[in-house]
């Protein structure tokens, strides 16, 4: 047997910030043992072959808690190679605490180069956003997914939702959206907005804002989705049609705060609302920090 499992020294809980480029020799490359990687890799390949279908996988306990990106981390660990350049974002930003922690984890266990620049990354792990900059063919976008089952809020039983997917019976979701329209005059889902992949599978895009949904459609980059606690992997291959569910008379309309970014002036990026005082003062800034930084630099160069 060549199940090249190595027994590493006991993990310390994944804290601390490793230096880029030097790998902790106490762990196998990218932390997971080889048989776990093979299992995840096989699941990823089947996910790619059946776009939008959730493939169960033997998710492992990671040294980071379930719900904090263990699915994305396992997918990233299974695909990552020494030549990759990794970017990790949470809420669009590279410097949010959990993104910092995950980036440090991979620097430590894989010794890979990391970047904050979307354009330079070959693998981008994300929570809750798709970068504003259009992704290209040589990139893989890895989503952290809390609840992979788009029907769960409507039908919590996995045995039942499996059956509904098998029959492509998505009436439940259509009824829910229709009730929204009847009550509010429009669809009241603003994030984690369900999509149809290649006209066959209803899929959760993960809790990205609906604003980001159109970016998934026919994206040149491969999109992989990892749900660690729920033990599911799914995928959208490049250039695959991804349609946000809607009705002819109530077309899908992504919501964005109607303001320009205070820092870079962008009028077409997704914005965070930042409270500046306690008497209603607020500004709006790009949630994608790399996008905003690049635009500010370009503006400064012109001036």
């Amino acid at each position: 047997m060549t199940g090249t499992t190595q027994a590493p020294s006991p993990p310390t809980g994944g804290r601390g910030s490793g230096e880029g480029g030097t790998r902790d020799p106490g762990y196998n490359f990218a932390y997971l043992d080889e048989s776990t990687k093979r299992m995840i890799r096989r699941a990823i390949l089947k996910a790619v072959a059946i776009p939008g279908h959730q493939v169960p996988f033997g998710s492992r306990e990671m040294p980071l808690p379930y719900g904090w990106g263990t699915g994305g981390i396992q997918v990233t660990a299974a695909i990552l190679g020494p030549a990759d350049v990794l970017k990790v974002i949470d809420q669009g930003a590279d410097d949010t605490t959990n993104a910092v922690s995950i980036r440090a984890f991979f620097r430590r266990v894989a010794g890979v180069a990391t970047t904050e620049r979307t354009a330079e990354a070959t693998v981008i792990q994300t929570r809750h956003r798709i970068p504003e900059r259009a992704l290209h063919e040589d990139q893989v976008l890895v989503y952290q997914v809390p609840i992979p089952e788009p029907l769960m809020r409507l039908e919590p039983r996995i045995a039942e939702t499996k059956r509904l997917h098998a029959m492509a019976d998505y009436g439940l979701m259509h009824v829910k959206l229709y009730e929204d329209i009847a009550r509010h005059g429009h669809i009241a889902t603003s994030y984690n907005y369900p999509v149809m992949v290649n006209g066959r599978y209803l899929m959760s895009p993960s809790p990205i804002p609906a604003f980001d949904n159109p970016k998934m459609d026919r994206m040149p980059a491969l999109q992989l989705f990892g749900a660690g606690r729920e033990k599911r992997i799914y995928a959208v291959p490049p250039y695959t049609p991804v349609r946000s569910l809607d009705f002819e008379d109530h077309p899908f309309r992504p919501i964005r705060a109607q303001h320009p970014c205070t820092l870079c002036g962008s009028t077409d990026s997704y914005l965070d609302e930042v409270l500046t005082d306690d008497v209603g003062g607020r500004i709006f800034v790009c949630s994608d920090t790399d996008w905003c930084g690049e635009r500010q630099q370009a503006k400064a160069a012109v001036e």
Partner: protein
Amino acid sequence: MYVATKGGEQAIGAAHAWLDEIRRGDPAQPAIDVAQIEDQLGLAVDRVMAEGSCHDRGLAALAVKQARGDLIEAAFLLRAYRTTLPRFGASAPLDTARMAIRRRISATYKDLPGGQVLGPTFDYTHRLLDFRLAAGDAVPPPAPTAMPDPAPSPRVTELLAREGLMQREVDAGAEPGDLTRAPLAFPADRPLRLQALARGDEGFLLGLGYSTQRGYGNNHPFVGEIRVGDVAVEFTPPELGFPVEIGEIGVTECQMVNQFTGSRTEPPQFTRGYGLVFGHAERKAMSMALVDRSLRAGELGEDTTAPAQDQEFVLYHCDNVEATGFVEHLKLPHYVDFQSELENVRTMRETALKAAGE
């Protein structure tokens, strides 16, 4: 001008330094030794081993120390360590009939072969705070000892089964699944259910077990037997082809005897709820046995109406490492989602206010 907050990495580093400091506590106090935790907080160690799904008292004690006594955090540390270990194979099933017994009680028979052995138990202690422990904790005089009863201690359920009164468990012969390797699928068979319950959260199972006693899926349980002690672990190395003993582990086993009124295919008899837990963990083993039996309702042709009878509900929610991760992930930033909800609620308010004004 507004500048976005930076320096997450430094802040995390500083938070962890503070955690290290506060974990060690007042330097004027002696540090707790891992060996002391293993020895004197043995039941905490047992719980961490059970829920961490890894039988290693020393590592469990280390986890308790590192986690500052947070036992769910400690179980998580041990689980994360467990997944990095290479797998050599599966042991032979434990033979608890050959257990070196420290405690063994039955609530169904006054006396029985092997006798009732109370062992070290809190039962019948008066729950009065013992202030002597705060004032030095002198070494108590040794407890009286007796010669162990040389008679074997057959399991109570086996005695019933010989009379045909207890449903026999049939070994289907199939290789049992492994929930650490493949995710649960439903309906889950009993080996998988027991695996999930054995590592499940004690508090969650206790609450569910309790609910079955209060009418939410009544199982009419009797404690046929609880036994606590050490059992040998045997493993057959492929190159040898015969089993060798590789060590002993401490376990608690509970067999609940439950009434069953019979079905079309089965005569009236008793049925079994089974609990087996690492270490000394009677509350957990009993709760597990209650829930195991209630999860059998479907296959025994009983109504399945109560939460404790619902496989998906019980098995998807009993794992405290999964549960704590997802509950606690709500602390992570959600401002992107919240922003879209803000815009959404503002739009809906505008529409509603306009409609009210008209």
